[in-house]
């Protein structure tokens, strides 16, 4: 490492690496140099002129955001001259700014408001006519109010650099310059809303949130997005038991500043009008709403009878329920119902990967690794659509650390644009194609390999062998689909394995077999929709379902319990990279209960409470920590909203865990399994696409 440069900022000495910008050096000692256009991680702009600082021996004020430090530099960030300069810059900014703070969505959390409050004049000297442009709607979720815009170009840069989309640009020049979308009047982009989030003023507003409330009126609940497996923290703004918006307010999650359309907007399924709010029991061939008591008694009686009669009971778990719920469900199935027919929708071959890596240390990549490691291989997945956070991390890695990215995929992907090598291959040919990169990869000091569902079973073993043969540290990510797909596997929602990948020593039917089976007596389904697409059940089992909506599966059920969504409960989930994070309850949907509570009440009703154990999330998590290898993580980190990577096994997994069943749904940016159907925002974006 090069020698540190020492300089003085506001009378305090600070040592930073050469090339550091004054604004960053100041931040290091807690001095905030105000700026609109400067945004950490994005290219420099130096357009807003707010960060002007005084540097000794320099004739005029210097822009702190582009000035690299020099040995012995003496910088002052707050002097009367600087305050006057900032005041005048703000005066210029406010000339054409509409000052409609009372109606502006940004009012209360607006950087321009803060800055004017700090430096600005109380009165305006501007008496001319303001330049006005009408507000525009660019997409179902993005509105643009040009007069409010201060042209900091943050949106243009985050879209181009951060997202790799480049949907925004600038038209006209001078005072009539305006941010404009690529298609003149509408956006064709990821609809991620990053531009809205990054906008320091209220120029870009969210179609889902606008004019609904004000920032200080909400409580902000940081929880984990329930859609894909990337485990982004989304902070829900809640008012009167209603989620107003999702954003990444404190940027404290593994996703930092990132959120995609699902994390930002697709919480709206929770108050869809078709949401189930009462238990349903089939009476005379029709599902009728009944009381919780009646439904629980009916379900308990049926389950008890079936168990006592030694009937064949199948259990299908969810890829979105919490670890606690999954753990409790498998315990309920195995101990309470005495069945080993337990499964879930497997979307990535984690089991084979863990087995193949047995004995290796630190071979599972974290989300941060994708940003930090010098080389990334993407195998058979379109990350930008299927795993937007991972894609964002890799792009940032390329931008900031010049990482070499190798894309080996069937179709062109967004990574191609900056990839060191982009190779096309057919769905099974990834490994052969990878072999052609051997020489290049062998020269990399370190490597992260991200692979999709086409690499499974033996292919995973071959991949790991390939990685090991390079003789370099290699880390892996097996891609899975949903928010707790990984957790469902870790918690033993498969016949072959108990929690922590211990062999169960028993066989059992897979989810598909249970659905197709002709002789199943009972089917207990939690938060899954195996009948999606409308295929009928093979036999005539008695079906009990926990669901939020009347899905195909729920319609075929005999008893339906209205379940809470991930935003309505506490617990933990495990992301695609094995990072465990906490869900926090934001709202309560009337009539629903978390799956864990439903299971607990059922257990109590069946008289099994003593056997299966308590059913509060913290108690169950404590049991997981004590019994499941790799889950004994420090509670304070989890409880304060941090993420800890789990290493559930480090040794051979003795049984074959049916890699042939692995199948990803390949949800894109605007779909999310069954859940996506009930999100108005996702549907409106998809519909908008069809119309144009």
């Amino acid at each position, binding site marked *: 490492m090069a020698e540190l440069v020492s300089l003085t900022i506001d009378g305090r000495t600070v040592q930073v690496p050469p090339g550091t910008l004054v604004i960053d050096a100041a931040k290091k000692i807690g001095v905030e140099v105000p700026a609109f256009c400067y945004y950490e991680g994005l290219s*420099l702009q*130096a*357009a*807003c*002129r707010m960060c*002007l600082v005084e540097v000794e021996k320099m004739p*005029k*004020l210097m*822009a702190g955001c*582009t000035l690299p430090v020099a040995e012995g530099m003496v910088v002052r960030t707050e002097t009367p001259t600087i305050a006057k*300069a900032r005041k*005048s*810059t703000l*005066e*210029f*900014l406010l*000339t*054409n700014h509409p000052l409609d703070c009372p109606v502006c969505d940004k009012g209360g959390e607006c950087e321009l408001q803060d800055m004017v409050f700090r430096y600005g004049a109380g009165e305006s*000297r*501007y008496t*001319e*006519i303001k*330049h006005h442009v009408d507000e525009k709607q660019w997409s179902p979720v993005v509105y643009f109010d040009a007069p409010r815009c*201060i*042209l900091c170009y943050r949106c243009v840069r985050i879209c181009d650099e951060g997202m790799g989309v480049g949907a925004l*640009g*600038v*038209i*006209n*020049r*001078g*005072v*009539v*310059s*305006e941010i404009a979308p690529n298609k003149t009047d509408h956006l064709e982009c990821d609809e991620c809303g990053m531009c809205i989030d990054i906008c320091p003023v209220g120029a870009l507003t969210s179609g889902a949130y606008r004019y609904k409330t004000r920032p200080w009126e909400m409580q902000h609940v940081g929880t984990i997005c329930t859609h894909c497996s990337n485990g982004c923290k989304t902070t829900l703004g809640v008012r009167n038991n209603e989620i107003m918006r999702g954003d990444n307010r404190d940027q404290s999650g593994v996703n930092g500043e990132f959120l995609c359309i699902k994390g930002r907007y697709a919480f709206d399924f929770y108050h869809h009008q078709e949401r189930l709010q009462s238990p349903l029991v089939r009476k005379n061939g029709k599902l009728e709403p009944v009381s919780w008591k009646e439904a629980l008694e009916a379900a308990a009686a049926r389950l008890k009878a079936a168990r006592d009669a030694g009937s064949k009971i199948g259990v299908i778990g969810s890829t979105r329920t919490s670890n606690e719920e999954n753990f409790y469900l498998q315990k309920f199935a195995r101990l309470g119902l005495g069945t080993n027919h337990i499964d879930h929708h497997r979307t990535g071959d984690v089991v084979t990967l863990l087995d193949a890596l047995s004995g290796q240390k630190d071979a599972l990549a974290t989300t941060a690794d994708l940003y930090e490691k010098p080389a990334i291989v993407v195998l058979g997945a379109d990350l930008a659509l299927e795993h937007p956070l991972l894609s964002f991390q890799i792009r940032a890695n390329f931008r900031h650390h010049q990482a070499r990215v190798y894309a080996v995929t069937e179709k062109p992907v967004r990574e191609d644009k900056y990839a060191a090598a982009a190779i096309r291959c057919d769905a099974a040919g990834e490994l052969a194609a990878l072999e052609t990169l051997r020489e290049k990869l062998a020269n990399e000091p370190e490597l992260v390999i991200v692979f999709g569902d086409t690499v499974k079973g033996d292919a995973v073993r071959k991949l790991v062998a390939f990685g090991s043969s390079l003789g370099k540290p290699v880390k892996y990510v097996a891609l899975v689909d949903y928010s707790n797909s990984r957790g469902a596997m870790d918690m033993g929602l498969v016949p072959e394995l108990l929690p922590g990948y211990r062999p169960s020593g028993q066989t059992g039917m897979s989810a598909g077999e249970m659905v197709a089976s002709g002789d199943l007596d009972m089917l207990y389904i939690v938060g899954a929709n195996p009948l999606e697409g409308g295929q009928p059940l093979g036999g005539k089992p008695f079906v009990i379902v926990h669901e939020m909506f009347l899905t195909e599966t729920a319609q075929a059920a005999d008893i339906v319990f209205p379940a809470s969504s991930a935003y309505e409960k506490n617990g933990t989930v495990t992301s695609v990279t094995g990072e465990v994070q906490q869900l926090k309850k934001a709202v309560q949907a009337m009539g629903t209960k978390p799956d864990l509570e439903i299971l607990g009440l059922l257990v109590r009703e069946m008289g099994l409470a003593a056997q299966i154990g308590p059913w509060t999330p913290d108690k169950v998590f404590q049991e997981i920590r004590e019994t499941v290898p790799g889950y004994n993580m420090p509670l304070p980190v989890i409880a304060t909203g941090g993420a800890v990577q789990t290493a559930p096994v480090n040794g051979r997994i003795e049984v074959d865990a049916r890699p042939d069943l692995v199948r990803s749904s390949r949800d894109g940016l605007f779909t999310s399994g069954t859940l996506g159907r009930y999100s108005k925002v996702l549907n409106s974006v998809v519909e908008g696409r069809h119309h144009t």
Partner: protein
Amino acid sequence: MTKLYNEPSPLETRVLTKRFGLPNSASLDTYLATDGYVAIRKAIEMTQDDVINEVKASNLRGRGGAGFPTGMKWGFVPRSSPKPKYIVVNADESEPGTCKDRLLMEYDPHQLIEGMMIAGRAVDAKAGYIYIRGEYRYLIDIMDKAIAEAYQRGYLGKNLFGSDFSFDCYTHTGAGAYECGEESALLESLEGKRGVPRIRPPFPAVVGAWQCPTILNNVETFCAVPPIIRDGGAAFAALGVPKAGGTRLTCLSGHLNKPGVYELALGFPLDKMINEVGGGIPNGRKLKAFIPGGSSCPILTAAECEGLTMDYDSMANAKTMLGSGGVVVMDDTTDMVKVALRIMRFYAHESCGWCIPCREGTAWLRKILTRFVDGMGTKQDINLIGDLAHNMLGRTFCPLGDAAALPTISIVEKFRDEFEAYLARTTVSIPVQSDLPVLQPGM
């Protein structure tokens, strides 16, 4: 083609313009007959350092406006860099009052090409781009013709004059933006992007076109290079004053009997330039204000012009700049408030919109000045105009903001009484609708 726009003056020192007025002056034959492509042959024989040293010895300073020593600029180019190097000619001549580069390209395009080649030889560049102002459409045809001729006759291309020196030359047109005369914005535009300035440092000499080392100079600067190499830097230096060598093409405009472009040695007396070269002010009127080098310079009053000479130091002493050679002479009938408005209209229209002080400041000043001229000014406005211009000065991303602020400050400070006289005018009781076009998107 050979007809000149103005009669030459006997007081001129004709070095760069020596071919002006010759029959077919733009043709390669005429050029060859008058010492053409002699300097490049000489430069190929010389070492690269010698070429740069010769330019340094000539005391040639950039003719675009900033007046940075050209030899020093060339010396900044890292010749050992593995990247290709480029020569870029700034022919985006847009400074109000300046019209010299067009003549150099119109009458003597090969001199420019040869200048680029010498620069290419000095820093190992193999390609040169001439970025021509969009409004100079006809010049592109002239330049393209000259380039084609040079290729045809073996003066451009591979292994020139039997040496290993190769050079290619291209023209590129701007789309009509003053901002693209700023070197880094020009490079952005040349690369096909929006013409906004880049963060400097790094300067183009190190990181220029396509992130490669680039020599970027004004047309006149490049045109001065062949005479320097041909006749020696010292001879060129001797024409001027100690710290600045050679001649300047001075564009005389405004209230003069004989406006035109004249090549005058640096250090030429200002008084003599107006009264003898320019033929004096018509109808015996008196000098009121003087713009020494394009509208970006602080304006001088008649009193301040006393005893000045046309060179960098003399102008700096008078707290203005030699600028781009666009001299504007204003007589005592000139309405300085309208001058201020005219200048500000230009800058408000040409501001690229990148940084806040320039984008909002120029537009605001234009609105105030328009209102003032329309007879609706107030006393506070006069102070406000000066204050806003001061707030722009030195705080903008590129020099365009300074260029708008400097003349405005000088007018408000030096001709404040004219602003006050506007307030006293009672004739304008009904606000006159200004005929100025309102800036609209797309304009």
